[in-house]
């Protein structure tokens, strides 16, 4: 069964690598946020899988819960600032350098 978990973990890492393409090269900041969200979701699963590989699931599970929450807080916190600046920026393209 450990082999299956290892294969699954490697597959998850491959998908993390693919998602990192969007994080690193995404044309807009919001694309990067979406990418980071996907990477965060994958990391949550990966942590629990690593917990199984180390045979110590309950300790890793706590971090996984914190991860799932942080992933949410990150998205909300970042977009909150965009929402706040609605009046100040007037919905322009945002190409100020």
């Amino acid at each position, binding site marked *: 069964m450990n082999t299956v978990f*290892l294969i699954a973990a490697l597959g998850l890492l491959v998908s993390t690598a693919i998602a990192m393409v969007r994080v690193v090269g995404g044309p807009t900041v*919001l694309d990067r946020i979406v990418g980071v969200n996907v990477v965060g979701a994958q990391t949550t699963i990966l942590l629990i899988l*690593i917990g199984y590989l180390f045979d110590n699931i309950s300790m890793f599970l706590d971090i996984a819960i*914190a991860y799932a929450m942080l992933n949410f807080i*990150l998205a909300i916190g*970042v977009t909150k600032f965009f929402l*706040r600046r609605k009046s100040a920026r007037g919905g322009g393209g945002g*190409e100020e350098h």
Partner: protein
Amino acid sequence: MIWQLDLFLLTLVVVCALATITVRGLLSATIIFAAYSFLMCLLWAEMGAVDVAFTEAVVGAGVSTIFFIATLFRSTTRSRLLIRGVDDPHHFKDQGWKMLPLMLSVVTGMLLFFGMADFPAWGDPESRPNTHVSSYYIENAVRETQVPNLVTAVLGDYRGYDTMFELVVIYCAGVSVVSILKQENL
């Protein structure tokens, strides 16, 4: 320690770090840095340092990202809001390659790399810290501190002052996040 995962994660972390310093736009750099933090925490957890991983997740991915973004939105740097900024190829041209910093960082990196050769092997039972300090903790910690978890005993009792001020720092960080996020006129 599973070397397949290690190799993959290290590659991703290096890619993230390079992207963070080369990307145009501080907001984008912050977001990539959050991804870097997530992966770094995974790396810590994968090496067995679960407490460091927890701190990295909360401080690196959570608090510092929110801090960076709050700072960016409150400051008036020229490149703060590059929402559509695609990396332009002229970025490096006007800077030129600065030879001295490059040499310095390469030399420092080499020195650190050579210093790594003196480390004991990962998880070596015969290494100096494992034969001297740990055995004392393992034998006496439960009797002296009445704490069943060894890591908690070391962090909370033998290194109690260290941990206390760490907690003060984390508490201050939390309070500052709340007070910055509560500002109405952001």
